[in-house]
């Protein structure tokens, strides 16, 4: 009996994890109210946790959640009793009656992403909003990825949702003329989702493991929607390159394995080939951009390993280009390492010194350890490595740093 209960609870949790974004997208596209859609879903999940252990798991768990959440949206709007709310509910019922598409999940989620990327939404809130509504990440984890406090992030998200509801932003994929203006934020959000999953190197969190696959799925969907956009191809190529190596990032014992020590037989050749195909298609369009550059960097890293050649100099050029497209903290840190690997550790240290607000940014200190080592300052390298270890939330990475992993091997 207890076993059954636990199984039902697990089932509810699995449905919640796998379908959160789809359900929010469908509900919100009918009511234009993301916060209300989220509340309704929370109600539906609570109801599932109460009923499924008692009555058994329904044959179609996601459909069950959808039905309960829709009813809950209706009730909540009834309580609010404003003309605007009533109008939204009427629109939802109307559209449900007209609905003929059997599975519009893909379209709804893309539409929701474009809503979040509307220029009328605070640009700082766009990517976080997509991560929360489309992929179901919680505000705390999003705040960590964007290097702001959880309170600031929650406030930003609440304000953005209110703006979408009250300003009457349409839930639809914009006309092709409008797409270029919004596509950059959509791509950033997908990449941020992938990055969040990537940081969880151990793959311990199953929700995050899903996230990497979802990010790639969304990029593929965009690739179909915008077949001629080189940055969409670049992003897809970039994520496939990284994903191809994901199984090699850990030893059997769970230890962190840096790229130059990875077992290449574990790399997915088919993913690398697909990544290269997208990158070549993008190059033919001759419009370089951030994601194409990042994909090219990953492509060079892979070739460096596969051919044994060193591409330190071309990598410096690519990182310099990337820093012009996207001068983010992470890019600037990686660029400094590229300069150091190419033999110019003085320039690398100067670049690192110029990056602001890095006190608690773990990758900065890990990079600084490597750059200091390459410059011949072993004491400084150890100091930075210990600092990076202290800031890491991953045991494997911590062990790697404290074992002097910054010294590299075999080169």
């Amino acid at each position, binding site marked *: 009996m207890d076993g059954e209960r636990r199984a039902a609870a697990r089932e509810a949790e699995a449905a919640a994890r796998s379908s959160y974004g789809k359900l929010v997208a469908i509900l919100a596209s009918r009511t234009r109210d993301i916060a209300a859609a989220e509340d309704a879903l929370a109600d539906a999940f609570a109801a599932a946790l109460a009923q499924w252990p008692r009555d058994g798991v329904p044959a179609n768990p996601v459909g069950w959640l959808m039905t309960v959440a829709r009813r809950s949206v209706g009730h909540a709007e009834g309580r609010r009793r404003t*003309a605007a709310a009533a*109008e939204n509910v009427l629109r939802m019922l109307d559209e449900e009656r007209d609905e003929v598409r059997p599975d519009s999940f893909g379209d709804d989620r893309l539409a929701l992403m474009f809503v979040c990327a*509307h220029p*009328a939404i605070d640009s700082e809130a766009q990517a976080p909003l997509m991560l929360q509504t489309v992929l179901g990440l919680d505000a705390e984890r999003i705040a960590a990825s964007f290097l702001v406090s959880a309170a600031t992030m929650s406030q930003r998200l609440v304000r953005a949702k209110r703006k979408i509801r009250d*300003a*009457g*932003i*349409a839930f639809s994929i914009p006309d092709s003329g409008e797409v270029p203006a919004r596509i950059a934020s959509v791509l950033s959000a997908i990449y941020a989702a992938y990055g969040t999953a990537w940081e969880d190197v151990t793959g311990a969190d199953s929700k995050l493991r899903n996230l990497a696959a979802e990010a790639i799925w969304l990029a593929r969907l965009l690739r179909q929607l915008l077949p001629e956009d080189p940055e969409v191809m670049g992003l897809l190529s970039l994520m496939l390159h990284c994903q191809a190596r994901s199984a090699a990032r850990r030893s059997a014992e769970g230890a962190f394995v840096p790229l130059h020590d990875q077992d290449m037989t574990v790399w997915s050749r088919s993913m690398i080939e697909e990544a290269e195909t997208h990158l070549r298609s993008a190059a033919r369009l001759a419009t370089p951009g951030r994601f194409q550059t990042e994909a090219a960097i990953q492509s060079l890293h892979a070739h460096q390993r596969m051919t044994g050649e060193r591409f330190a100099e071309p990598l410096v050029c690519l990182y310099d280009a990337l820093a012009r497209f996207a001068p983010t903290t992470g890019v600037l840190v990686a660029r400094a390492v590229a300069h150091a690997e190419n033999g110019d550790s003085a320039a690398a240290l100067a670049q690192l010194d110029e990056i602001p607000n890095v006190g608690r940014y773990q990758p900065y200190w890990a990079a600084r350890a490597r750059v200091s080592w390459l410059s011949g300052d072993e004491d400084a390298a150890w100091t930075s490595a210990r600092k990076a270890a202290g800031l890491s939330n991953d045991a494997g990475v911590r062990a790697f740093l404290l074992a002097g992993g910054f010294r590299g091997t075999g080169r």
Partner: protein
Amino acid sequence: MHYMLLFNETAAELGKRTDPARADAYWGGWTAYMQAIAQSGAMVSGNGLQPPEVSTTIRVENGKRHVVDGPFADTKEILGGYIILDVPDLDAALEWAARAPCVSAGSVEIRPVMLPPAA
């Protein structure tokens, strides 16, 4: 949904209204714009406003009336007129706003109109 478009004009733009060399083009632009909205069926209401020189501002502090000549504060842009539109969503309102003659000589603010609470 109803949206108010607030047309903010620079002083130079507003000055065209009375400049013989430019008044025709100025008024011609606005008339064509308003007619286009009206013909589309999106116009609810709207008006141009007279310049800030004929504006008066009042505040009441502790029961005492403070009446001053002109608008409340000096700003670079002046509210020159407004319209109320009935369109499906923000993008449709933005599309009309982007066509306003003052959009490149000032700005247009778009505000959703509040609906009264249901009875």
